[in-house]
């Protein structure tokens, strides 16, 4: 039974691909074409996302990864500087940590 209920843990690369698709949905394909979205991309500086776009992105992360991660809780523990400097890689690592501690 356990084998059936245990969810497949996503690899680092798979998480990166999912998050990239969320960013594309939020800011629109026409803008993403000119961008090089990497793990080192920061949300505000490199991707130029504003706060309401980060809200949309957070909602997508929450609805995709569900109750296994407290994404809003994690974000709320950060101060403004940390939020501004938040990189894609930080989120990938956070999701990976949540998956392994399930």
């Amino acid at each position: 039974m356990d084998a059936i209920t245990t969810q497949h843990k996503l690899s680092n690369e798979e998480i990166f691909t999912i998050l990239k698709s969320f960013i594309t949905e939020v800011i629109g394909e026409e803008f993403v074409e000119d961008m090089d979205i990497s793990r080192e991309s920061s949300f505000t500086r490199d991707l130029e996302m504003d706060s309401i776009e980060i809200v949309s992105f957070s909602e997508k992360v929450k609805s995709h990864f569900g109750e296994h991660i407290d994404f809003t809780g994690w974000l709320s523990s950060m101060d403004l500087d940390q939020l501004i400097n938040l990189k894609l890689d930080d989120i990938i690592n956070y999701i990976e940590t949540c998956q392994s501690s399930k």
Partner: protein
Amino acid sequence: MPVIQVKNKSVHIQELNKGARETVVLVHGMFSNLSVYYFNIAPVLAQSFHVVMYDMKSHGMSERCEYGYDLLSMTDDLRDLLDALHLKSVYLAGYSYGGLVAMKMAMRYPSRVKKLAVIEAPDPSDNETLSIIDIYSKEFLVDYINNYTDTTRMRMGKRQLDKNHRMYEYLFYETSIKEDMHNERFFFADDAIGNIAHDTLLIYGKSSNCLPSGRKLYHTVPRSKMTLIEGDHNLPIQQPLETANKLKDFFVGWQVKFKQINHKLWQALRLSYHH
């Protein structure tokens, strides 16, 4: 993305801790959106309350609308939202122009507001907002954003600048916002403000140019108390945790805390009795 229909208009809302007994509703300011609360303030309040945030018409991800930016229409919108969410009475907080909306709500529908919190609400008669609308241009926006960047450390790139410029152009030239806000310039002289019977918390920044407005309200609203936090008008961005904790303590109130302590004491007594 929770976008709900309220009176045939799409309204973007966000909710936390659904199912909690009491609800806090947060109203953002003009030219802003619910993200001012989403990251830090709402999660703190959600430790004790069901929290509802919404984007005003033409703001954030809510539907655009040509009319209805006066306080009557804005409180109609809020009443309709409460109806749609089946919320009879809520703890209400508003920031900047949203603070005026929250006050107007308490004046028009007192039974739907349990307690009122007003953050950095300006006196519309001496506020710079109206002059900003008159002199608006893209160059002005760049200046304004540079200043905002200095005080909040938020940066803005070209795509964001264009996005904001489109929002301002729409609001200023294609909606009634200018006229509607102008018509509210005597709001602080409304006698009904002196009849607000709710416990009211006024939160202002120590170096805010809206501080004199806060003092006026403190002298007019009978059951008001005022609390000052380091910062200027951008207080919720500059001091989100302190703002959130002030709101939470005010909404929870000493009566509730007293009950909680009492409940724990009784539990402890009962346990010791059974042992």
